[in-house]
């Protein structure tokens, strides 16, 4: 029987659910805790021409790569503690682990979720400009966006969007609403310190679309399983995931009253913390199917 490798952290809900499903199904699973990795990880990868072989293990009997049936990689690429990461050695170890892991996942012949293109190695969340740059031509509607270091340009954008704007830090994924003159004044002050990524706040109902292979699981804002997305919208979600070579990702969407669907951002390693039990189980089930090729 082949083994499934799960790389991540004990606290990761997605890892917990997938491991539980694999266990319930009687499948062998090797959990590789990224935050308790070194020393302890046995890893030996021999590459000669086009031939690759090796073994991986955590304390137990190392598993030959040829016996791996799939890998769920929920790795941040940081195998050291926060305090160690601040040190030169900690950063070096992190770079080396990351370089090794990404090449290994790329090369494995079994299903890997996600097998990342280099462009996505350090991006877990993609804002609109990044999605447009990396997946051009995907027929999705996007809100108007502006990146600026100018307070005047920020004001101009705010007025053009009729006072319905969100500010996002470029390297974060939590937006801050800018909906009043007072908000705008605060934003203008911030422009002296940070570049401003502003998006038009599209009015409508939010949905999170979890794409797992061919399936799209829509989740409402309360975490509950939502009704199925219109087929063209679900197809566009799959198209974006496919264009980015992602088996698993989450797209934040907004449905307007006029029937338009906008994409707002993409998460290639979505947390399932805020997802309700029914939808979580459905997503975990889809992940196990994608990893093993059969229903758990």
């Amino acid at each position, binding site marked *: 029987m082949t083994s499934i490798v799960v790389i991540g952290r004990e606290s990761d809900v997605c890892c917990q659910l997938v491991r539980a499903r694999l266990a319930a199904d009687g499948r062998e699973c090797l959990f590789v805790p990224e935050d308790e990795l070194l020393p302890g990880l046995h890893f030996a990868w021999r590459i*000669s021409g*086009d031939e690759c072989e090796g073994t991986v293990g955590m304390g137990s009997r190392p598993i030959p790569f040829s016996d791996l049936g799939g890998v769920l990689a929920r790795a941040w690429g940081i195998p050291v503690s926060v305090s160690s990461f601040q040190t030169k050695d900690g950063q070096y170890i992190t770079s080396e682990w990351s370089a090794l892991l990404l090449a290994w996942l790329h090369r494995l012949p079994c299903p890997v979720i996600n097998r990342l293109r280099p462009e996505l190695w350090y991006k877990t969340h993609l804002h609109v400009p990044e999605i447009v740059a*990396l997946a051009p031509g995907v027929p999705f509607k996007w809100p108007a966006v502006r990146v600026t270091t100018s307070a005047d340009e920020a004001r101009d954008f705010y007025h053009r969007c009729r006072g319905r704007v969100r500010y996002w830090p470029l390297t974060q994924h939590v937006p801050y609403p800018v909906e009043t003159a007072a908000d705008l004044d605060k934003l203008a002050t911030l422009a*002296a310190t940070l570049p401003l990524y502003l998006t038009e706040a599209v009015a409508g109902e939010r949905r999170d679309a979890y794409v797992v292979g061919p399936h799209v699981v829509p989740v409402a804002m309360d975490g509950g399983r939502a009704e199925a997305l219109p087929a063209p919208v679900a197809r566009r979600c799959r198209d974006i995931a496919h264009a980015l070579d992602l088996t698993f990702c989450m797209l934040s969407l907004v449905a307007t009253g006029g029937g338009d669907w906008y994409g707002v951002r993409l998460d290639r390693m979505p947390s399932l913390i805020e997802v309700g039990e029914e939808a979580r189980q459905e997503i975990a089930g889809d992940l196990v199917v994608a990893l093993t090729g059969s229903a758990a």
Partner: protein
Amino acid sequence: MILVCGLLADAVVELMCARLEDMGLEYFFLDERRYPGAFDVSWEVGPAGVTGWVAGPDRRVALDDLTGVYIRYVEYRESLEPAAPHVEAEGAGRRDERTQQMIRAEFQASLMQLVDILPCAVVNRAYASISNDSKLWQGFLARRFGFHTPRTLATTDPEAARTFYEACGRRVIFKSLSSVRSIVRPLDKESLARLDLLPNCPTQFQEHVEGVDVRVHVVGEEVYPTRIVSEATDYRYAGRQGAEIAMEATEIPDDIAAACIGMCRALGLTVAGIDLLRAPDGRFYCFEANPSPGFIFYERATGQPISEAIARLLHRGAPAPRAARATDGHPRPPPDARTGRRRHGGPRPKRRNAS
């Protein structure tokens, strides 16, 4: 109009600016030392693409007018003292280091996301530059273009390293797996004694391959191969090892030139420095494709007009091709990989700051 982003203290940026001036090509220099502060950017993504501007103390340039961007991604802010003027005025001293890092990351992202989406030629886009962070990943790509790669072991296991050492006839080097610069060293008696530290950090070992180092600078469809002769294991550090180094323009076979160009195209790189080794039997080994090559070192030594070629490319405005991908997500050789136009030596370009 060409946009140059970087630090003037960076010799490569200084050379590019001097070359553009020599060639009479108009450029705008965004001094990242003074961004934020003296420079601003503002851009928008819409149905018509990206629009906006970059501005400095005395001029503003529309993004539509750009034919090319030359940008160096350097961790410049770490060494900045004092901080950018207005950040300092805002009380940089009161901000903790974590906050400062986040601010730096935000400003860097504002430029990187812009150059990733601009339709003009960019040397090089941020997203195309990332693959260099995994030498093994690049090695697999190199093999797809017909290059050889040395027998390799990546491991945390001391016993596996010892076995590999013996299997390679005790001629093994070790080096970093990532783009963190490390000196390539032979696995000698002293290093063998330290193998028990391997469980703390995965390490890359490679069979030592004899041959002559060849650095190939790819500029669009042109290649500039340089032959490096040195006794040092890592010629970049020949001086430290007390070894001599000699460089000269050389020739490479057409299929190798085409493979270098094809590899760059697959990576989405417009310009790259590809590290090859020509073995005595004529085989070419590939070690990595550097997306931000310090070509000044080679241009000075050989007179190869690399900066001139980059300037021409930026002026022409030919956009970098997007990486072609197979259905499995791996970059693939383009079906029309053409033989690169090779330029060997040639007249030494006029220089102002290049030497």
